[in-house]
């Protein structure tokens, strides 16, 4: 898209609308994932969707593909109002989504996967010969060469994607939405995929390309839409954009969210947590950092950059290949969460429902689960002490519930998150790892949690903060480390940190190389 971009865009504008979103809005619980999104995707173009983690790109893609239903707003496809109840409905209109995780049947052949559900069959008996002929035609048409009989589980990720693409075309897809298709590909493979995508456009397919890799997006797409906090910032021809401009659009002029005034720990504050050369092949490499008493260290980076993996390894939830962990200068052996708890390290996991709480049990039971030995005599739970301790924490954290006996799944997301905090503060830890501590909660609870983290640090706790909201990391952390591809690529202290610099480092744009470590 170097010289002809503007002209191409003009031509594209003359072509008809393929998909149009009008005021599309989507809520997840109390969180608004999409707010009045208006978007036009033109036929025979490659349309990029970019934005920070949680900006709503994937949600929008899923709504267009019928995997999610909008709570408000309309979807127009081929100039007709479309109300999809399932991906099947969208497919009937020629729209299909290739998700981040491949959805193939691993133990069956490429041929079977491509024609799954649309087999040539007579009286239920599969007509292999016809299917093979169709497969040959299909492969010739889109210039994708794959052995028909290979088992898909033996294929590399790039080839599995090709199977998905073939499957989409075989079903007559006129629009293919690809969600982060290159995140698991090598540079070469990604380039080849771009070639395929361009050929698909030539034969008349519309492509929606969702990606974190801004350079790739600009090199490939005709039009790009920037999303931020579930809203469309702008849609413009790719030729008019640069990675830097996109990043600025993605962060925006942030609405001032009041964060408490940072209190930096004194320079002689004792070192509480020290991590040396933490590595696990394929996940992260040589990660080293320290946190002092009273310090909040932010771990920034994109999803998949290794933030959570590092945190889980420190907590003993996942194994590590190498690395030493010290608490107060003493080497500790951490091979399970149990060891970490004993050493005074706790972790609020990123997935509250999947990893944090036992939903059908009470607040009190969840709060005391890691600390039962402190509220029991000879294995019998002292329910009075448990109840009092839980009530105290519920009061100080402002958990709104009927009482300590209330079941977790009767609480709102914000209150559940506060219970999760109560669980890890029942016995004061030395180190608190908070992974996405404000995910899926309302604005009021977000602020309360931010203030809590601030207060805990001020009281001398060492805090490791992970958040997809860069604003939050910037607003709370005393120092920030940026991870990319499992390595620490930049670090910022109180004087050098800025939203642009952190994002540029995370996205690896040119500005980052200049201001890098």
């Amino acid at each position, binding site marked *: 898209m170097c010289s002809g971009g503007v002209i191409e865009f003009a031509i594209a504008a003359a072509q008809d609308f393929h998909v149009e979103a009008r005021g599309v*809005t989507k*809520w997840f*619980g*109390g969180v*608004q994932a999409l*707010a*009045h999104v*208006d*978007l036009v995707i033109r036929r025979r173009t490659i349309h990029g969707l970019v934005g920070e983690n949680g900006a709503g790109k994937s949600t929008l893609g899923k709504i267009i593909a019928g995997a999610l239903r909008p*709570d*408000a707003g309309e979807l127009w496809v081929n100039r007709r109002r479309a109300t999809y109840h399932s991906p099947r409905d969208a497919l009937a209109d020629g729209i299909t989504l290739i998700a981040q995780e491949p959805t193939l049947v691993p133990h069956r052949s490429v041929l079977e996967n491509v024609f799954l559900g649309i087999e040539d069959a007579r009286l239920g008996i599969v007509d292999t010969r016809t299917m093979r002929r169709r497969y040959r035609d299909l492969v010739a048409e889109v210039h994708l060469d794959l052995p028909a009989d290979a088992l898909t589980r033996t294929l590399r990720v790039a080839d599995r994607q090709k199977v998905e693409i073939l499957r989409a075309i075989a079903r007559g897809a006129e629009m293919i939405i690809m969600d982060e298709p290159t995140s698991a590909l090598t540079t070469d493979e990604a380039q080849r995929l771009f070639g395929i995508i361009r050929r698909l456009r030539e034969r008349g397919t519309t492509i929606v390309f969702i990606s974190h890799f801004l350079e790739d997006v600009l090199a490939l797409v005709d039009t790009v*839409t920037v999303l931020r906090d579930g*809203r*469309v*910032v*702008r*849609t413009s021809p790719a030729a008019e954009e640069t990675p830097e401009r996109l990043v600025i659009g993605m962060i*925006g002029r942030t609405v001032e969210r009041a964060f408490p005034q940072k209190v930096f720990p004194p320079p002689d504050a004792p070192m509480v947590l020290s991590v040396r050369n933490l590595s696990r092949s394929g996940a992260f490499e040589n990660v080293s950092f320290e946190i002092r008493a009273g310090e909040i260290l932010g771990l920034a980076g994109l999803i998949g950059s290794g933030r959570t993996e590092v945190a889980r390894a420190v*907590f003993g*939830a996942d194994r590590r290949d190498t690395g030493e962990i010290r608490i107060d200068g003493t080497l500790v052996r951490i091979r*399970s*969460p*149990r060891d*970490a*708890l*004993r050493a005074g390290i706790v*972790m609020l*996991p990123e997935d509250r429902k*999947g*990893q*944090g*709480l*036992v*939903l*059908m*049990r009470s607040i009190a*039971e969840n709060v*005391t*689960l*890691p600390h*039962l*030995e402190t509220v*029991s005599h000879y*294995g*019998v*739970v002292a*329910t009075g002490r448990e109840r009092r301790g839980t009530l105290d924490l519920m009061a100080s954290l402002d958990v709104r519930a009927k009482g300590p006996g209330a079941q977790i*799944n009767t609480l709102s997301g914000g209150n559940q998150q506060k219970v999760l905090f109560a*669980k890890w503060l029942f016995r004061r830890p030395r180190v608190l790892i908070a992974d996405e501590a404000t995910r899926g909660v309302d604005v009021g609870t977000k602020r309360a949690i931010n203030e809590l983290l601030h207060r805990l640090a001020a009281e001398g706790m060492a805090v490791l903060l992970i958040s997809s909201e860069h604003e939050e990391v910037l607003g709370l952390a005393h120092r920030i480390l940026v991870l990319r591809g499992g390595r620490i690529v930049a670090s910022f202290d109180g004087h050098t940190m800025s939203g642009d610099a952190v994002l540029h480092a995370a996205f690896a744009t040119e500005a980052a190389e200049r201001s890098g470590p």
Partner: protein
Amino acid sequence: MSTNRESTAVAPPIRGLTRRQRIAVVRDYGVVIAFLGLFATLSIASGVFMSKANLTNLAFQAAPIGIMAIGGTLVFIAGGFDLSVGAVSAFAGIIAAKAFIGTGLGLGLALTLGALTGLGFGIGNGLLVTVGRVNAFIATLATAIIIRGVAIAITGGFLVSVPDERFTILGLGVTGGINHPIFVWLGFALLCGFLLSRTTFGRYVYAVGGNPEAARLSGVRLGLIRAATFALSGLSGGIAGVILASEVQTAQADANPGIEFDAITAIVLGGTSILGGEGAVWRSVLGAFFLQMIGNGFNLLNVQVVYQQVFKGVILATAVALDAWGRQTRE
């Protein structure tokens, strides 16, 4: 596209709660409602039903299945499944009988040895499922086949008869008008109920079944807890086995066929979820009694036995469907 759109928030959709609350009530207290309903119906329809003799007899007959159901409840709550208790009960009966006849052990020790054999098998199941990582369904199916096989080997396929009348004290003895198996059932229920509701072990059992990952990240030793539930289930199979052998004064390799399914039926009827994390001992006690009451009622009302089977099957399916609906609507 403009950036500064007026932020008119569209309210999140609110779904009605009445239907799901209704289902939740039926799911949580269905067994109580059904139990009371059937109890009232039978009391009115049959003059004999409410007699002390009939009710005691009911509890006596339900006791072995009831004991197994209690052990199985712990396994279910921790997210497991145990198909081996029937085989375990046959084996435990053989051990108790042989120990009583063939060794100098007294009656008490012989019966205890039989029950402890069940505990041993339970520990084996636990290890197979946790350390061996074999799916609980398959693991306990496999051990059931093995145990029956070994039982045939050591008995040569013959009945082990105990000529000494004293052997029947546990199964057929009566104290204060109450059959001994009822005491054992009650004692085991109180013990396991206490373990589950009041101790740290009980808390861990619920957590492990309710959300294994959350439990692990809370420092709970998943394997140990799961294995312990299998051990207790094995023990319950052992206890039920010696009671049953004592009742008939004989033991054999193919004794108590299919009894594990009756125990599972009792657990599920009681309302303990097969998906783990939820349930209680009292539920399975009620479930076992309910199951026995159906049989008893059909007999008292002179309904053909074949319909009994059909009826049991239908209410079992209903109980599980209610569980599934309750979960789905709660999402």
